[in-house]
């Protein structure tokens, strides 16, 4: 009787230590998935045990397309960047001062980790939670996610973590996009070889007024169509209707805001209109001149006049229709605008 | 080894000789241009004088190791540089007058610009 009592006593005494999740165990778990512990119904109780010695940062997310959580999908690579940077510097999960910090993640799957979500009583995603060492598994605090994405958000979260844990040597490494590096190198090499091989053609291209003119006009149209807005604000490419069925091309009613696709549409409109004007000024007289004499040199003025007439008319009609489209599109963005060129039947 | 270095040396030598050739040729041409023309001689002497004055001012600041008051130094230095530039512009018009600007008009404009320049320098010296 006493022996069993002693055994039980020793077991009860040592079991917590054995079952307590040590930093080594955590780091082993983390190294299985390259620095981010994946939480499942089976292992989360053990990992979030109260006897842990490290801080744990948990991301509860749902990247399934059906859930449609855009913020989750934005946050995923940022979280991975944070965890990877931490893992790169500290593969054991320990900072210089000996404090441990680990990153964990649970991507919602009803079969594998729904218990994790229930444990934290979470019904909105994404949630970034923070557990202190020696804390109760049910006591956690939430880290606020700043609205601005990208590096600003990562740096803000890192600052919060620094304040909370006192770890000062948390450096963020932005992963090198090997794909784009390779493509750039390949393209540069290809262009250099081509230029070397076809030197006279390249020289002619570089000095050609038309090439420079088209390039300049392209750049001007791009900037006038709001390209800088997209690159500074990082605007969405296009919107979706509430039920996800159709794509919205224009942000209606918002004169100070736009989608990425609006730049492209409006850029094309400007390009067509400018080409119509250039065509009217340059192409029509050239065509008239071309058709003024036929191959044998006899003047065929009626043909030239007719060509001039039809070309001009087609340019004018295109101009009118596209300008009407531009006015209509602007009316979408600024509903109080009173002028229109074309009566749109569906508006 | 040897054939590679000798062409290189010859290259350097030839470019050096080209350099000296160019300089001597331009100097000769310059002397020829100036020799007959009193106007050009006057302009060039004035230019040389201005360069000398500017250099002296700059060296003074370097020697004194202090540019206080900066506006005075800048006024003096800009007077030299500005007047030099105006003189060179006038010289270009004397050698080869611009289309639509007679030599008298060029000189008149030069005087106007110089007056404006010196007025500004006087204001700047304070």
């Amino acid at each position, binding site marked *: 009787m006493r022996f069993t009592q002693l055994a039980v006593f020793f077991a009860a005494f040592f079991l917590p230590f054995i079952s307590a999740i040590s930093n080594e165990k955590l780091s082993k778990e983390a190294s299985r998935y390259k620095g981010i512990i994946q939480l499942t119904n089976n292992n989360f109780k053990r990992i979030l045990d109260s006897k842990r010695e490290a801080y744990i940062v948990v991301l509860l997310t749902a990247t399934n397309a059906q859930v449609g959580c855009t913020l989750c999908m934005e946050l995923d690579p940022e979280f991975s960047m944070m965890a990877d940077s931490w893992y790169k510097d500290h593969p054991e999960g320990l900072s210089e001062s000996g404090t441990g910090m680990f990153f964990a993640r649970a991507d919602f799957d009803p079969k594998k980790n729904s218990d994790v979500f229930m444990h934290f009583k979470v019904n909105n995603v994404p949630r970034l939670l923070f557990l202190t060492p020696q804390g109760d598994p049910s006591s956690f605090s939430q880290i*606020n996610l700043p609205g601005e994405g990208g590096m600003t958000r990562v740096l803000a979260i890192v600052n919060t973590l620094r304040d909370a844990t006192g770890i000062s040597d948390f450096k963020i490494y932005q992963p090198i996009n090997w794909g784009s590096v390779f493509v750039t190198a390949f393209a540069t090499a290809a262009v250099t070889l081509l230029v070397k091989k076809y030197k006279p053609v390249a020289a002619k291209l570089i000095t050609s007024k038309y090439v420079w*003119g*088209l390039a*300049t*006009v392209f750049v*001007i*149209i791009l900037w*006038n*169509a*709001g*390209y*800088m*807005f997209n690159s*500074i604000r990082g605007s969405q490419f296009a919107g979706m209707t509430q039920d996800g069925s159709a794509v919205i091309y224009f942000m209606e009613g918002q*004169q*100070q*805001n*736009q989608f990425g696709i609006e*730049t492209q549409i409006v850029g094309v409109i*400007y390009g067509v209109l*400018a080409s119509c004007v*250039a065509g*009217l*000024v*340059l192409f029509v*007289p050239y065509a008239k001149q071309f058709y003024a004499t036929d191959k044998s040199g006899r*003047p065929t*003025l009626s043909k030239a*006049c007719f060509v*001039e*007439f039809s070309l*001009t008319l087609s340019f*004018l009609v295109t101009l009118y229709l596209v300008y009407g489209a*531009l006015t209509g599109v602007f009316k979408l*963005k*600024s509903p*109080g605008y*009173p002028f229109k*060129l074309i009566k749109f039947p569906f508006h | 080894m040897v054939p590679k270095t000798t062409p290189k040396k010859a290259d350097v030598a030839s*470019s050096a000789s*080209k350099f000296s050739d160019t300089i001597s*040729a*331009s100097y000769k*041409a*310059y002397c020829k241009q100036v020799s007959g023309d009193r106007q050009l001689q006057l302009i060039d002497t004035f230019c040389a004088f201005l360069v000398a004055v500017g250099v002296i001012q700059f060296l003074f600041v370097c020697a004194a190791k202090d540019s206080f008051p*900066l*506006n005075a130094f800048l*006024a003096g230095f*800009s007077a030299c540089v*500005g007047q030099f530039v105006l003189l060179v*512009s006038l010289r*270009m*018009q004397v050698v080869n007058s*611009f289309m639509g600007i007679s030599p008298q008009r060029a000189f008149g*404009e030069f005087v*106007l*610009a110089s007056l404006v320049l010196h007025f*500004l*320098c006087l204001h*700047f010296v304070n």
Partner: protein
Amino acid sequence: MATSCTQKHLIRWIQLLLKCTIFLSLTAAAVSSRLFSVIRFESIIHEFDPWFNFRATKYLVNNGFYKFLNWFDDRTWYPLGRVTGGTLYPGLMATSAAVWHGLRKIGLPIDIRNVCVLFAPAFSGVTAWATYHLTSEIKDSGAGLLAAAFIAIAPGYISRSVAGSYDNEAIAITLLMVTFMFWIKAMKTGSIMHSTFAALFYFYMVSAWGGYVFITNLIPLHVFILILMGRYSTRLYSAYSTWYAIGTLASMQIPFVGFLPIRSNDHMAALGVFGLMQVVALGSYVKSQVSWQKFQTVMVVSLVFLLALGISALFALTYFGFIAPWTGRFYSLWDTNYAKIHIPIIASVSEHQPTAWPAFFFDTQFLIWLFPAGVFLLFLDLKDEHVFVIAYSVLCSYFAGVMVRLMLTLTPIICVCAAVAISKLFDVYADFSYFFSSSSAEKPNLSKRDRIMTLVTKLTVCGSFLAYLVLFVHHCTWVTSNAYSSPSVVLPSRNPDGSPALIDDFREAYYWLRMNTAEDAKVASWWDYGYQIGGMADRTTLVDNNTWNNTHIAIVGKAMSSPQEKAYDILKAHDVDYVLVIFGGLIGFSGDDINKFLWMVRISEGIWPDEIKERDYFTPSGEYRMDAQASQTMKDSLLYKLSYHRFPTLFNGVEGIDRLRGQNIRQVDIGNLDYFEEVFTSENWIVRLYKLKELDAMGRDLHTKGEFDRGSSRGIKKRVAKKPLLDVRV
């Protein structure tokens, strides 16, 4: 012979008469389309910045130019004061004062306020004239007239030059076009006189606007591109060197600019091109004397050497601190994330946001698609002056896309290029000379059908583009009338029954302040309202729109974000008598202080990160709320209490509905105001004025005093003496 001579004379006179008539009507259109707000409301200075310019002009007119240049303003940025004479651009004020004096001399004593209000429309006529001359140099006088017409009514320019918008841009755009006009004239002829005028108007521009850096970099860029294209000529040397020498020297005469042209990186491009120009001149001279072969080696060697020398010198001087790097305001145009991280005040200004595409169309309508067509057509001619237009277009398109405010600098070149495009179009299609020419030698044999077809073609094109031009005029008038003619000091709105009503709360409050407070009273408010308080109420302010001292602004921000007691101490330490708060919750005015509150917190957090934390002002779930769910720090903050004081009494006494944010504000959250007392609230509760309470005569802290007053007012007598334990019956 004689008849054709007189015919030519007649034609010239008719052209001159037409031009004059057109110009007169243009000027009339330009001036009248800017007068909407004067006719609808009254002749008043708009917005915020113009109030400071107006106050400075009044000082100049009353005290003379010398005192103005040496003015130390002790009624702003209390207790620091501001060396106003040396930190503003005097061009605008000096011009207004000159106009005022001039009018008085000829017997028309016009009040300085009217001179300032009508200043911008008057100068818009001059801008049209300058644009006419510039475009005539680019193409011909027909294009010039079109460009002048466009710039006279284009909303992009009108937005900053309506009557009442007495800001630097009113005169800056005029001077920009005049400087460019003289520069193009100088560059085309090489005339030293035109260069000198360009330099003098450049000096005038430097005295008027901080955006002069644009000219300082555009002209050297133009010259550099020409040199790269191999179009160096002695005319170019003469024009640029004269402009640089005289222009830079002149620009250093302005106290605010000082030695910037030789110290700051913004101006180094001009100096670099100046040096390069001298070298190219020497090289060109040498080249003319020697064979091309010999010259090539010399040229390559010397170019490489000079480039290395120049770049290393620039880097060395910047590194050792002789030359300051690019100032934050202009650097943020290249590195667009710089301002958000390092200078939040610049990032917070709404004019500094990037431009979405509707803004381009709104400001220029069909000119925006004629603009690329015009640029392309200029590419085909590609004379020296066309290179200038192209460089200006590309550079400005980028800047206009980055910052809404710079749409103003893009508008003139859009007008010029669009005018060139339409002019070329009319050159081809408005040419009816064929139908009027009498000599049969010019007329090839055309059947009647062909003649009619050609006529119809030309008429259709002319007709449709005339219709587009008319639509443009309608659009410009509509935009000016609806969007750009609001004084923003007086707000138009509608009564419940639909009749128009005016919200005049600002002037009501400022006038109260002016009439009912001591002359040396100090008013604390957020920096947006500093200039208006100084201009209309004539009281000393702590911070204003100049935003030159971030720490001082942070002090006011900290006071607004802290609880009452701390705020009282901070404000008392700065001798503040009154606090002014803008509250839009009653009528839904969206520019109120609670909407700006986060910027107050952020700016003060930048200086005191331990005491103020932005997170504390959000709800636990991260929302920015004012109702019951708001965080306690938010409810305790001074701005919350001052904005919502007595607000529920307008409703049922327990809860008030904040119309702007759509939330219910509870009286228990608002609590009691012990350290401040309300002295004035305007009609629609937009402006609220509070006075700091005097220290208690009995030495209690004001919170205790407040509690006592509330207790005694409730009628509950507090037992001070306890009933004795002894049961003594008397």
